[in-house]
């Protein structure tokens, strides 16, 4: 059996392996430099950045739920300029492949962020966090309107030569239509899923458990929904997908790859086990070797569907 090569292409982005630290779950990367060899990861998606510094929401900002957690961090952050000046050089020194996750409240902010980051050395790609409210559209989240998504992606596309990766929100009726809109607007890849809007209430005080009332659900609880969405998008678009949602083990990585992800992001698992990365890489290599594959792409989208008859019958009456 030949050796396994973990390298993958995600559109124009070349990664030494398909494992990417998910935005907001790995700080700016440098926080983990002591425990994780950043250069050994496919890439690091840093915490979402606005143009300006942000103070974020009041605590409590997280709460645990069955097989998951809610967060309402509120995108506390140092702003793009301090990031470029203070953090990026450290990431470069550590040879991290850096994907910068950007957020704005207007289309122009996204474009401006893209311009600033295009001039900064050491940025491998831009991931567009479109789970932010669009101030001009009355606060509806960019990522929940096809128009909002298209506007952001097109504006960023015009502003940067960097790979552009919109990150889709799962809080929509038809995620595949958003993936198609992203492709048409010039995205190089899409990443999905961001967190599911959710809440928890303390029944003794009757107050929401998060100061922000609503938060985003992540972790293993959401994995089956995220896998479904990656699978649906894979049928709908030609550009590559970075899949994520509840990955904890190498088996979960493989599940996303088979569903159609070209790369897999890992978020909440970092909190549970910061030393998870070598385990994931080893497990993935072992799986590929055991199944006689020499490259990751052999299994991307390699789902074995039942005969069309059965599938049609399924669609007729719906899942239940």
């Amino acid at each position, binding site marked *: 059996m030949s050796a396994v090569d973990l390298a993958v292409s995600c559109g124009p982005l070349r990664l030494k392996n398909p494992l990417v630290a998910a935005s907001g779950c790995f*700080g700016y990367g440098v926080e983990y430099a002591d425990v994780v060899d950043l250069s050994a990861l496919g890439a690091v998606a840093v915490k979402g950045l606005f143009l300006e510094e942000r103070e974020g929401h009041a605590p409590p*900002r997280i*709460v645990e739920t069955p097989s998951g*957690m809610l*967060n309402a961090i509120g995108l*506390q952050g140092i702003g793009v300029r301090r990031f470029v000046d203070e953090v990026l050089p450290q990431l470069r020194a550590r040879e991290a492949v850096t994907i910068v996750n950007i957020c704005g409240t207007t289309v122009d902010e996204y474009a401006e962020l893209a311009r600033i980051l295009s001039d900064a050395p050491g940025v491998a790609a831009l991931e567009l966090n479109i789970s932010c409210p669009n101030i001009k559209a009355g606060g509806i989240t960019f990522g929940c309107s096809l128009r909002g998504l298209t506007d952001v992606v097109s504006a960023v596309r015009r502003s940067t030569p960097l790979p552009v990766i919109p990150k889709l929100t799962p809080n929509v009726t038809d995620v595949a239509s958003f993936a198609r809109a992203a492709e048409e607007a010039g995205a190089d890849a899409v990443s999905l899923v961001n967190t599911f809007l959710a809440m928890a209430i303390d029944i003794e005080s009757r107050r929401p458990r998060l100061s922000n009332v609503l938060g985003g659900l992540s972790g293993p609880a959401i994995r089956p929904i995220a896998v479904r969405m990656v699978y649906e998008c894979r049928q709908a678009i030609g550009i590559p997908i970075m899949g994520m949602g509840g990955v904890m083990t190498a088996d979960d990585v493989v599940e996303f790859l088979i569903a159609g992800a070209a790369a897999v992001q890992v978020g909440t698992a970092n909190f549970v086990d910061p030393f998870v990365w070598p385990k994931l890489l080893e497990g993935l290599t072992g799986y590929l070797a055991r199944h006689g594959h020499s490259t990751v792409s052999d299994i991307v989208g390699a789902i074995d569907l039942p005969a069309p008859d059965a599938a049609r019958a399924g669609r007729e009456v719906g899942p239940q």
Partner: protein
Amino acid sequence: MPIDVDALVMSNDRLSATCNVLKLAAPAVAAAARPGQFVMVKQDLAAAPLLRRPFSVFEVLRDERGDILGLSLLNQRVGIVTEALYALEPGERLRCLGPLGRAFSLGSPPGEAWMVAGGVGLAPFATLAEALRAAQVPATLLYGGRSKADLVYVDWFRRRGVRVRLTTEDGSRGEPGLVTGALERMLAAGAPPGMIYACGPTPMMRAVAALACRHRCPAEVSLEPVMGCGLGGCYSCVVRVRDERLPAGGRFVRSCVHGPVFPGDRIAWDALAGAA
């Protein structure tokens, strides 16, 4: 540089119906730990609940020769994980990631040190007491609980030359009332110490910080916010520190990396949940 070990439980001393001491074979973590630092623990990585929980390093355990064997945790039952830690049996294992966070500063030049503990807030003071003793700083422990059952390990501190002053709310041991009352009386009675350290319920720490400030005495508090990762990655554990130049009167810093130990006068206490 924190490490994560799958530590063997060497013993579990149930000191009361709510409180126990777990001894863990985690020598490398223990050897690196400084007073006030913490670990993030979890049973089987794959098992529920999902997230780790933060615990102060209580004792650093040594054999007769002085070699480090591991560390202990002082645990109080309040919820899912702390219940499970109370039930753990020797021979079981606990994942233990650490040491993490900023330690107490030992103050220079070394004057006298007072440690103010409320209930299980005693936890960070065992290692601190050893460090103070090594630095030949005279130390006093002011230690309060609701009732005498809440006061544990008192002799442990006495054996290490720490003066101990106890309070209970129900008067069942030591002075009746709150530990902050005892602190107030000590401050009124003579010169303040070189440093006051406090750990316990947030209102208590706030009161200690206010008293220290009034007597122009430096103070450090060890906060206990909810923590998701312990490594600075999730931004869940923020506490607002004062900065008069900012519109909000302060800014959020992560207490897992910038704390859990903070100077008492840096905390924007009004913004802290449960500090009322």
